[in-house]
């Protein structure tokens, strides 16, 4: 396997997801990192610390904004130049669109949501949990290059030290790729205890019914000495701040205890919290997917159960 691993970066740092995929790919064979955008060369050298002897960098201004289509152009040029037979990505909003665009451009197979991959001889085999994680599927590719999107958090970066030899490359850009433009960005300020450091998380989803119901979770979290988290649906609805969002586009957390209240358990949420030690789910819908991957499933009304739970926890601690 001669693999290219797409390394996403944000505010001068390489993202952990891509470095995890790079570490894994480098443990299997020939893997090189790819960094795109202004400042790429300096960042690309850091790929060496994760097992890649070589990294490619294209620092064209056309790649300044985190938009997918110019990246498809650059990767197309790089695949042609390097004759790589695999291009691997850590899933993200950006990387998913880049991978699918590249698949169409190169007529190359794309497997997504991979939780692991291995070589069987020279064959790349991906592991994927499908249908709401009810079945584990071994997936393969016909033809080359083989494109893969790896589920967020599947691999931790393994740091070995060293620096990669960086090769700069240039890419042509197609007219339609440069039509989109980033015209604004907003990030909400963080407040309250950080969910990434908390041992106990009480999380709420649409089943809360209203933004006011988050106060029930805040009281329970305070009693437990934990933090409050939220799903994408309620963050997008403006019920709770973005900084508390757990899931594919939010944070990945692994507390000792995760209490999911009114959360159905969409796959996008699951990938952010499945590493929790104990998962307790409270939901009134007995068919909610979260009941398939929790340790304790409580079918009932959270508006009744959570206040009682808060009282009992306070009593137990006093």
């Amino acid at each position, binding site marked *: 396997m001669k693999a290219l691993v797409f390394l996403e970066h*944000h505010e001068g740092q390489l993202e952990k997801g891509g470095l995890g995929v790079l570490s894994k790919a480098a443990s299997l064979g020939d893997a090189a990192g790819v960094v795109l955008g202004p400042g790429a060369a300096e960042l690309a050298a850091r790929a060496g610390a994760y097992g890649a002897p070589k990294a490619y960098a294209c620092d064209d201004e056309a790649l300044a904004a*985190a*938009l997918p*289509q110019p990246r*498809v152009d650059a990767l197309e040029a790089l695949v042609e130049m390097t004759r790589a037979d695999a291009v691997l990505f850590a899933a993200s*909003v*950006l990387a*998913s*669109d880049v991978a*699918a*665009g590249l*698949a*169409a*451009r190169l007529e*190359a*197979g*794309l497997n997504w*949501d991979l939780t692991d991959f291995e070589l069987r001889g020279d064959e790349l085999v991906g592991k994927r949990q499908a*249908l*709401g*994680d009810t*079945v*584990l*599927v*071994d*997936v*393969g590719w*016909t033809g080359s290059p083989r494109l893969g999107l790896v589920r967020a958090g599947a691999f931790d970066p393994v740091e070995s030290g060293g620096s990669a030899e960086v090769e700069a490359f240039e890419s042509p850009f*197609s007219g*339609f790729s440069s*039509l*989109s*433009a*980033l*015209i*604004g*960005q907003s*990030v909400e300020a963080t407040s309250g205890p950080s969910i990434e450091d908390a041992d*106990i998380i009480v999380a709420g989803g649409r089943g809360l019914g209203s933004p006011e119901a988050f106060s029930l979770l805040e009281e329970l979290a305070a009693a437990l000495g934990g933090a409050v988290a939220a799903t*994408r649906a309620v963050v*997008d609805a403006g019920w709770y701040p*973005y900084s508390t969002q757990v899931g594919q*586009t939010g944070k990945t957390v692994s507390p000792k205890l995760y209490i999911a209240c009114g959360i159905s358990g969409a796959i996008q949420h699951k990938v952010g919290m499945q590493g929790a030690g*104990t998962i307790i789910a*409270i939901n009134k819908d007995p068919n909610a997917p979260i009941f398939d*991957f*929790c*340790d*304790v*499933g*409580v*079918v*009932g*009304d959270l508006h009744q*159960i959570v206040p*009682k*739970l808060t009282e*009992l*926890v306070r009593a*137990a601690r006093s």
Partner: protein
Amino acid sequence: MKIAVCVKHVPDATVHKRIDPTTKRLDRSGESALNPTDLNAVEEALRVKEAQGGEVVLVSLGPAKAADSLRKALAMGADRAVLVSDEGAAGSDLLGTSRVLAAVLEREAADLVLFGQASSDGDGAVLWAAVADRLRQPVISQVAALTFEGDEVHGKRQTEHGYDTISVPLPGVVAVSDAINEPRYPSLKGIMSAKTKPQETLSLAEIGLAPEAAGDASARTTVLDLGPPPSRGDQIKIEDDGTAAQKIVDLILEKRLL
């Protein structure tokens, strides 16, 4: 404004989904419905049409019975539907599916192509980017708010780092998130009128594609093996009869999590 909405007919949420061990494809024999998050794309298209006038066309690839799902979206207010249904398209992966949709969308020449957030059966959430590349049009995904500024659309999308606002000149492709709106329920009048709205069913040949352009023959991904997922261990199920809170606390104390 002509808006094309790509929608998918998927196994109903209440159906226990399974992969057929012989064909290694999803068993689609049970009850089916319109993919839930595609309703948000249909709703957004209808709102644009209501504000600016125009036409909303549904575009789908699927079995013949997908026509039933399309009728539900027509009942919401879409004007007509184009379904590509062909035995030869069965087993299409991302490449074949995007090729078929792009072929229909090229014929339709819409100003705006909308997608929903993700299919509930495939979970890929990537199709729009492949279709946009084939159409050679700009794309934005995960759009939680969409506004029109002259002949551009501005989409606010959520990423891992916050919110980006991206401008895209039309024609273009936009994938909306399920946070963008609350889909309407069809009215009785809508349901009645849906029965007479134009519904086209086309074969691969009729959209100008060779048999090997879609289906198994075009797939570059394969399913090698199926197995049970890794287990989290024994599960405790509690039906709340007023004592659930006590049981949870007992368990937390027993596991020394406090």
